């Protein structure tokens, strides 16, 4: 019986010569040495020994080929190797990326009888898990159909993966992860020579862009037209069209449709938000972004049914990575939700209470500022914007109604806002935001109402898990004087606090994740929010505005951009008289 070294040399020459393009017959020694990870000198010495044994034919400076006897021995050791691989996968439950090393050991030790029993047990298979042909007991291989690689097969034509010719574990895992295993039907959409890449489309319309090196290792065969019909893969039955390059002007948007059923009142259907985004690139360095939002569907005269708001309309001058200038209508860089509020990206039908009554999302103002990345995961924004109007502050919703929203906004004494973010750790975003401005410009005689806000947040997401937390506090200086001035103006004491505070923590987990049917996630959130946290001297906080809430629910994403949400919101206040209503909510939100 030949030694394992001899068998490995014969097998390497067998595989190497089978990959040669005719009329080349001899395998270059350098190629053989490289495959065996030995020096050319070592390979030559061994090949000369094999030639003396009559197993190979060696031509100095030309290469090596197997003789008939060598061919048979090599085919049999290859047969053992490939059958063992298949047996380990099919019978013993190994994954296909871990069988090669096991088979390398076992191929030299198993008997022909054992191999034949395995062969019978597996049903006389013709290929191993990687699609490599398995020689029969006589060392013969069934004639192979003509195959091509992803680099040579026709474009926009469905092909079946027949073989993967790299046994590297990482590569095989990559292939498995992206559904490119033998038997998978795929289609090459585009080859980009400049980018050295190949884009393929697989089942469920999955797209994958591969480097040409990886693409050269995936062998494919054309799928018969009849088979294609039988497979009935809708994605491949469609006429294929190459995607156009991204347009200079792009339209996008999101929508939020809600069913709210609160305690003590009738249920409502509310088309809460219809938002259109438009962007335009004047050049790579000058961009426009606009966001127009219709809230609650109808805007009609003076009736307060809905709102039509220009939430963003700015031009970015992208000067460098660390310093860029923005001017126009901008989102305030505060908290998790204000800048990141597309319905599929947060749990819950409604936004968190904290992001309504403490941070008045969606908070947008006219102004200008700078933003950029400082390196090592640090990012910043710093804007000068129109201040809040203290004359509109309330006890229940704090500073929310004080937003000027860029409508002939008073900027006699502009406010400043900023955010520092740390995103260097994969999945983790930590942020700190601030806002400071003087908000008493409506009052005569003039007096100052300095308002400031500090906010800290963290968000961690990894695969199926998502955790969030946010803390925010608002200070309204001269709140006592503000209450007196407003009481004189409207005849009622508004009872505005000097400090508002809120925080929440949320955990969500995508329990079901299926490529065909989408994902399902459940979440729980605890919120505490008090718009009467600290009162000015002589004023007593209203306990009904010191609230906390538990919100539990689930989201189903049939598509990553479509979210069907359910939640139950349990709200409690410190008041024994005024009860905060619980509510059951259903939402349908989408982004395109």
């Amino acid at each position, binding site marked *: 019986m030949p030694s394992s070294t001899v068998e490995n040399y014969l097998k390497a020459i067998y595989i190497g010569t089978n*990959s040669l393009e005719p009329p080349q017959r001899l395998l270059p020694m350098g190629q053989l040495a490289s495959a065996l990870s030995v020096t050319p000198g070592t390979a030559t010495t061994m090949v000369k020994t094999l030639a003396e044994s009559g197993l190979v034919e060696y031509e100095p400076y030309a290469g090596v080929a197997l003789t008939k006897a060598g061919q048979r021995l090599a085919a049999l050791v290859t047969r053992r190797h490939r059958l063992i691989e298949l047996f380990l996968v099919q019978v013993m439950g190994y994954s296909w990326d871990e069988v090669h090393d096991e088979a390398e*050991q076992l191929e030299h030790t198993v008997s022909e009888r054992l191999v034949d029993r395995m062969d019978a047990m597996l049903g006389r298979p013709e290929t191993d898990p990687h699609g490599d042909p398995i020689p029969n007991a006589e060392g013969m291989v069934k004639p192979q159909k003509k195959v091509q690689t992803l680099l040579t097969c026709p474009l926009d034509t469905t092909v079946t993966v027949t073989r993967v010719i790299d046994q590297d574990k990482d590569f095989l895992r990559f292939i498995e*992860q992206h559904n490119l295993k033998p038997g998978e039907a795929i289609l090459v959409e585009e080859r980009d020579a400049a980018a050295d890449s190949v884009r393929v489309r697989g089942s469920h319309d999955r797209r994958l862009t591969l480097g040409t090196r990886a693409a050269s290792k995936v062998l494919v065969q054309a799928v018969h037209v009849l088979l294609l019909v039988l497979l009935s893969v809708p994605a491949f039955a469609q006429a294929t069209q190459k995607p156009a390059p991204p347009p200079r002007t792009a339209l996008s948007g999101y929508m939020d449709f809600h069913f709210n059923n609160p305690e003590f009142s009738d249920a409502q259907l509310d088309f809460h938000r219809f938002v259109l985004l438009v962007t335009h690139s004047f050049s790579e360095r000058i961009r426009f972004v606009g966001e127009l939002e219709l809230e609650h569907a109808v805007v009609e005269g003076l009736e307060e049914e809905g709102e039509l708001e220009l939430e963003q309309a700015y031009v970015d001058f992208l000067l460098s990575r660390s310093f860029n200038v923005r001017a126009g209508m901008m989102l305030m860089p505060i908290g998790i939700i204000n800048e990141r509020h597309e319905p599929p990206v947060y749990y819950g039908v409604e936004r968190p209470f904290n992001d309504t009554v403490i941070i008045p999302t969606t908070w947008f103002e006219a102004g200008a500022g700078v933003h950029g990345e400082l390196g090592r995961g640090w990012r910043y924004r710093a804007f000068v914007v129109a201040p809040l109007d203290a004359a509109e502050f309330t006890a229940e919703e704090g500073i929310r109604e004080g937003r000027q929203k860029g409508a002939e906004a008073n900027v006699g004494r502009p406010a400043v806002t900023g955010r520092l973010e740390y995103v260097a750790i994969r999945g983790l975003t930590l942020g700190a935001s601030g806002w400071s401005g003087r908000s008493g410009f409506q009052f005569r005689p003039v007096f100052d109402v300095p308002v400031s806000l500090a906010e800290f947040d963290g968000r961690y997401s990894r695969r199926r898990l998502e955790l969030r937390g946010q803390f925010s506090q608002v200070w309204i200086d001269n709140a006592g004087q503000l209450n007196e001035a407003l009481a004189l103006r409207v005849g009622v004491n508004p009872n505005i606090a000097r400090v508002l505070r809120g925080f929440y923590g949320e955990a969500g987990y995508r329990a079901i994740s299926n490529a065909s049917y989408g994902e399902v996630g459940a979440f729980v959130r605890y919120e505490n929010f008090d718009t009467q946290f600290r009162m000015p001297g002589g004023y007593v906080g209203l306990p009904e505005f010191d609230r906390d809430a538990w919100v539990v629910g689930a989201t189903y994403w049939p598509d990553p951009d479509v979210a069907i949400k359910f939640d139950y919101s349990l709200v409690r206040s410190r008041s024994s008289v005024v009860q905060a209503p619980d509510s059951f909510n259903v939402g349908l939100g989408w982004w395109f």
Partner: protein
Amino acid sequence: MVVLMRIALTSLALLAAAASGPSDVVSGFSRTGAQEPQVVEITAERFSFNPSEIRVKAGTRLEIRLTSEDTMHGFHILGTDIDLELPKRGRGVASVTFQPTAGRYTFECSRLCGAGHAFMRGVIIATE
């Protein structure tokens, strides 16, 4: 039958490992070697790339693999033809090879992905 085969194969594996010791011979012609590109994995989500700063030695052949955690994003390296479309969450990976000469290469999201789309930028820094 299957149990017997498992026992037999496991025993053989142990015997073979004990008998042969470390082997200096491996077979296969397409094993990865020193020429493999350096793999860089980047995740994209509204509104950041992670990592957003990649430092390499000039001339390093990079294989950049990109996955999205949410919607469809783009990956455009300014000043080059590289402009990939990242499939949505759970729908695959986009990858591209890039061999930078010394310099800074800004990349950005090239598919409108939401209110903070303009913040999605990063840089590849290739040094001598």
